[in-house]
């Protein structure tokens, strides 16, 4: 088990490194650097930045050094907890991101939780009552969930809320809590707003998980040991829940590691439609303004958070299923 976790850890470290390189590449890719767009911005408002000033700014931000040195400097800064200045907001990046990163994770985790709690019972039901009306209904909803991109779903739900309830169901907080400091009342307000974004984000994953659970359980239910258990007179609930479900749970659980990055990824674009105060809208704005430190930090942080989330779910998986512990030692 320790070897397995160690292997996962090494992989996680490599993933974080890969994400950091990619994030840095994103920062570097646009032609020109921030100073170029800064000068353009200043020119638009009427003030002129001289060549000398531009050069000084470049030296100040280390933009005149070779790329790997810039990368190294960036990494050192981050290790010290300094994410640089957001040049668009003129404030430290850490301050601009603020709660948004945590809220992104809260929304994603809520979606993941919802995916589990919905997919498991529905998957079991669909397998046990194969070809029943309920099974067809869930299969249909499942296919729809797979086919409708979540940002379109968000749009449709927002539209329905607007037309039928005359209410804006976007956002994560009621107006009075938006800028309020954290309190229990604010947390409660957040929890009340969470279900709709979580449902929208989780639907595609839920659909996929239901299909996996249903297929796995159907395979198990046909095995002779189930017949034996039933023949021995075990109550039906016990026959199903105690043995086949436990076996079928394993492939089901192993896909969770891939589900989390997928949900985080989706949360970016859904947040834009539902105007959630997550990093999504901030990232889009930063990218369009070529605010390099802000965009890079967001991509990096999202990657790191995802890797940690995946690592945790991997460890839970080992804990659930002893067979993995044996396989990888």
């Amino acid at each position, binding site marked *: 088990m320790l070897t397995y976790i160690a292997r996962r850890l090494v992989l996680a470290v*490599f993933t974080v490194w*890969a994400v950091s390189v*990619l994030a840095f590449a*994103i920062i570097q890719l646009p032609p020109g650097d921030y100073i170029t767009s800064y000068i353009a911005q200043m020119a638009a408002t009427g003030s002129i930045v001289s060549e000398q000033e531009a050069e000084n700014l470049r030296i100040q931000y280390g933009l005149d050094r070779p790329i790997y040195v810039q990368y190294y400097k960036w990494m050192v800064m981050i290790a010290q907890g300094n994410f640089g200045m957001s040049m668009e907001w003129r404030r430290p990046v850490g301050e601009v991101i603020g709660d948004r990163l945590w809220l992104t994770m809260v929304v994603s985790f809520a979606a993941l939780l919802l995916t589990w709690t919905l997919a498991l019972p529905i998957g079991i039901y669909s397998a046990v009552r194969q070809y029943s009306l309920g099974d067809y209904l869930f299969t249909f909803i499942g296919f729809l969930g797979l086919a*409708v991109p979540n940002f379109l779903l968000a749009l449709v739900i927002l539209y329905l809320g607007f037309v039928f309830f005359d209410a804006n169901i976007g956002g994560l907080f009621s107006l009075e809590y938006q800028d309020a400091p954290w309190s229990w009342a604010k947390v409660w307000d957040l929890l009340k707003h969470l279900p709709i974004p979580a449902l929208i984000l989780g639907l595609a994953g839920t659909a996929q998980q239901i299909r996996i659970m249903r297929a796995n359980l159907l395979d198990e239910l046909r095995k002779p040991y189930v017949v034996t258990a039933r023949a021995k007179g075990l109550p039906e609930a016990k026959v199903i829940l105690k043995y086949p479900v436990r076996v079928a749970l394993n492939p089901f659980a192993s896909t969770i590691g891939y589900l989390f990055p997928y949900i985080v990824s989706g949360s*970016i674009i859904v947040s834009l439609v539902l105007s959630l105060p997550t990093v999504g809208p901030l990232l889009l704005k930063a990218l369009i303004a*070529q605010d390099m430190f802000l*965009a890079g930090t967001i*991509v990096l942080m999202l990657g790191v958070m995802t890797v940690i989330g995946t690592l945790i779910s991997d460890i839970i998986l080992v804990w659930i299923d002893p067979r993995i512990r044996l396989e990888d030692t």
Partner: protein
Amino acid sequence: MAEAQLSLDPSASQATQGRRPTTADERIFVASQWQLMWWRFRKHKLAMVSGAIIIGFYLVALGADFLAYADPNVSEAQRSLMPPQPIYLFDGWRFSPHVYAVRGRRDPMTFKRVYQADPSQKIPIRFFARGFEYNFLGLIPTSVHLIGVDAGHRAENTIFLLGTDVQGRDQWSRLVYATRISMTIGLVGVALSLFLGVLLGGVSGLYGGFADTLIQRLIEILRSIPTIPLWMGLAAALPREWSILQIYFAITIIISLLGWTELARVVRGRFLALREEDFVVSARLVGCTQMRIIFVHMVPSFMSHIIAATTLALPAMIISETALSFLGLGLRPPAISWGVLLQQAQNVQTVAISAWLMLPALPVIVAVLAFNFLGDGLRDAADPYGH
């Protein structure tokens, strides 16, 4: 293929044990692999229907300019946000498709443009009418469109099948043009992913060892990174002055660079499974070269799996492009794709007033569903001996 003949449908061989094989059985015995797959695929009704829908989509993509009746890029403030207008097929009892003339004015209270149909003015719709100039299939210059109006009128000002957008451009015409880009961008992207997937998956499955470990870890790393922020970052970095075509290819490359992993896994799995098969071992023993073993013996037997996996990879590509363009980071106007059209539906206030702006979501959903069902059917058919 050798194992194919041996492990044929067991029910068929059981049935033939006691009696002479019937003609139906004989048909199965002599059928080629592809024939068996086709028979199997035919049984999957949903996949058949989906296949037809997909073909329909590509026909629309081919004949987009013929199906459009208005130039998709001509904007006109006088027709801004026009709601969809039906085409009336019958005039009394006579078949004579027509539309009512529409007059627009500005509401003095709300300052919104409102439109009113005038039932007394009927404008007949003609089939194969003349409209804007285009090259049919990119070759034949013509101006014939499926529907249109008589020379006295302009189709842009009379027919509003699916309404118009904020800039007064006809939505139906834009939608058929968008089909062209959205349906092909997936193909180009998938071709690229396929190349990467087959190459890396093949190396991984064939040679094993260090290369395999390296590629597998690379896949794991790529799959544990949230892709949309990365796509956004890469797409935002594309130079603003690039042409539509350059952006189109750049976007497909970005999407497929992160999307090849699933295909690589399928290919690797197939190579691993086939490497130990009897017919591959015997080919090796009689001294076939590596290349011959791969392309003559192995590739034909997993071709069908690759086709199925490719079909299942297409919807993800289409959704990716739509999502990026929706954010304004993918294709940019004047390019027209489903995502570009949906960009107008970003604002809920706009959508609440002009719900028809959400219509471009429909082809996205239908196409994605159809590709999924088709892929499922192909995957089942790829292994015609299983149950």
